[in-house]
């Protein structure tokens, strides 16, 4: 049956003789379908990744062992997962919050840098007594990150400058400022381009054996944002803005103040991630402590559908993947870039799976 020439019919993906595939936009999407599509996409992504790893030389029988048992049931590795999870959850939250008000914050790395710079400035100035030093560093980090995020937010709200480009460009400016400090006034006495080591009172301590305080900060931030988004007036306003800024404006939502303050919040969250990496992993400000977190944050926010609770879970899963990747590197010589590829493949599968939740496919003869 050749129907392709019939006028007026929607011939999307028409195929002669085998009936026809038609595509409709769904009016509503059931949660079951949404979860099913997400699970299917992740399963496909993981299958592709597993095949790639087997091709790269990891025995198929060892994959589950390496990924699950060796990573999550080994105390050292589990601790590493938690240390890695804290900044990933924070950057995921940062992205999720900004996306909720339709602001594409691709400047997470720049805001992390300023978080690290703010915290290090407090450390180098020995500001306040030792007992409150960590709190002072935390606050300084948030202020610095929020201030850096205020630039693209103001440019967008006042002058309509595209934030995708401005936040990306400001990342490079921030990294040059970081290098200017580390190769200049903040250079360590040992001559290397990193800051002086933080003193013991400036390092985020382990709260429990195996659980670093950074993870507690990340969990607290996630819990707070769950409450804010689900229960507060600001959370309701964000939902309006996310659906349609013009309708929100007409309904009396203070759109501009809301967007501006949410972007500052996003910058502060990213900055806390920078503080956590500097203080719990590196113990000082280094040249590259922030690298790779920007895109990871955006991808975590996307996978979590801008939901703070989901962002916390996805952040931990991403951390598991990173640590598993480090083990694969040690035992099988798999380059770390393989982990990046796996993350990218999973996100691509999820992005493509949205098609199935938004559209209904129809096979008509």
């Amino acid at each position: 049956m050749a129907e392709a020439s019939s006028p007026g019919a929607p011939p999307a993906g028409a195929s002669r003789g085998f009936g026809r595939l038609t595509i409709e936009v769904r009016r509503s999407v059931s949660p079951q379908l949404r979860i099913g599509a997400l699970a299917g996409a992740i399963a496909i992504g993981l299958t592709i990744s597993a095949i790639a790893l087997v091709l790269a030389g990891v025995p198929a029988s060892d994959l589950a062992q390496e990924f699950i048992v060796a990573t999550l049931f080994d105390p050292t590795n589990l601790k590493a997962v938690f240390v890695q999870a804290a900044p990933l959850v924070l950057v995921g939250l940062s992205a999720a919050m900004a996306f909720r008000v339709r602001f594409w914050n691709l400047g997470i790395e720049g805001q992390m840098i300023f978080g690290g710079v703010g915290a290090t400035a407090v450390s180098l100035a020995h500001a306040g007594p030792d007992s409150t030093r960590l709190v002072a560093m935390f606050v300084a980090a948030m202020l610095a990150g929020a201030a850096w995020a205020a630039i693209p937010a103001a440019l967008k709200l006042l002058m309509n400058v595209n934030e995708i480009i401005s936040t990306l460009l400001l990342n490079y400016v921030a990294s040059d400022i970081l290098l200017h400090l580390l190769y200049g006034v903040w250079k360590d006495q040992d001559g290397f381009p990193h800051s002086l080591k933080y003193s013991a009172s400036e390092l985020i301590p382990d709260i429990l054996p195996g659980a670093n305080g950074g993870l507690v900060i990340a969990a607290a931030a996630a819990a707070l944002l769950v409450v804010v988004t689900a229960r507060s007036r600001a959370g309701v306003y964000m939902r309006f803005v996310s659906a349609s800024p013009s309708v929100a404006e007409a309904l009396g939502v203070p759109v501009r103040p809301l967007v501006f303050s949410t972007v500052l919040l996003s910058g502060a969250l990213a900055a806390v991630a920078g503080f956590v990496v500097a203080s719990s992993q590196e113990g000082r400000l280094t040249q590259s402590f922030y690298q790779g977190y920007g895109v990871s944050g955006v991808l975590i926010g996307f996978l979590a559908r801008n939901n703070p609770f989901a962002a916390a879970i996805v952040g931990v899963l991403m951390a598991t993947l990173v640590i598993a990747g480090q083990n694969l590197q040690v035992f099988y010589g798999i380059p770390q870039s393989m982990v990046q590829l796996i993350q990218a493949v999973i996100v691509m599968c999820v992005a493509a799976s949205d098609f199935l939740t938004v559209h209904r496919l129809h096979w008509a003869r």
Partner: protein
Amino acid sequence: MLQFLVTWLATTPSLAVPYALGAVGLILSERAGVLNLTAEGLMLIGAVSAAGAVLSFHAPPLLGMAVGMAAAAFVSLLFAALVITFRANQVIAGLVTVFFCQGLSSLLGAQFGWTSKAFSGLGPVPFGPLATIPVLGPIVFGQDLVAYLVVPILFVVSVVLGRTRAGLNLRAVGENPEAADAAGVSVPITRFLAVIAGSALIGLAGAYISVASVKIWIDDMTAGRGWIAVALVIFARWNPWRALFGAVLFGAIQAIIPKLAAAGVMLPQYLVLTTPYLATLAVMIWVSIARRHAPGDEPGALGRPYVREERV
């Protein structure tokens, strides 16, 4: 002083070429309505595969660069399928493509041992005695073939865009896909072709960096040039010739920094390195203030997936 100007102007073209080619590649895709953030990643694919072709297969440099173009065009199919076929969010799809390409290029370089191996690469076109003419020689006759080809390539792109049926279709799909569809132009096919052709040019930009400028492959060697190309598209308001102007401006700023340092001018070098980014930001602000009431140059359907079933 003259010597300073001559060396500065002679090194500017090779720094401007990747910006110009990358921005024009992005313009092709964006004029068809596909918001394209993939340049940083596709440049890396172009760079690694061109270097690989030269190192492993002893390809002549120009052939290696053609391999880089083809590889970037091939990888861009992933992005194109995501945004055109699966109608994924174009920002997310662009970012994840960059992430994918960074991983893939680093993996390829490591697996095949191409990383950090210098090779002879593409040299200047041998103009013989012309190259020794004072002042003009190094500037006009000291460049490589691809640098001379940039203007013809831009000419072809702008003629195709502005004066041919294919270019009209491409622009129609980017401005008003519903009308283009009603007129019988296939929106998905046109967009696919625009993304692929643009990505080949972006791949050439990357291949130029590894084979002609630096003559080595190192992980993430594009170092943000792709993002500058993305910004240049806005700077140029989607016009290839303005993109060339912006590329030369950026190349000149980048070229002058080491020259000033070598001439003994004491500058905070890392802060000077921020000038291209700040200049782009300044231009974006200027464009949005000065052209606030002017008609927009942005393609009407930029960033919007085309959903035919919603047609009434």
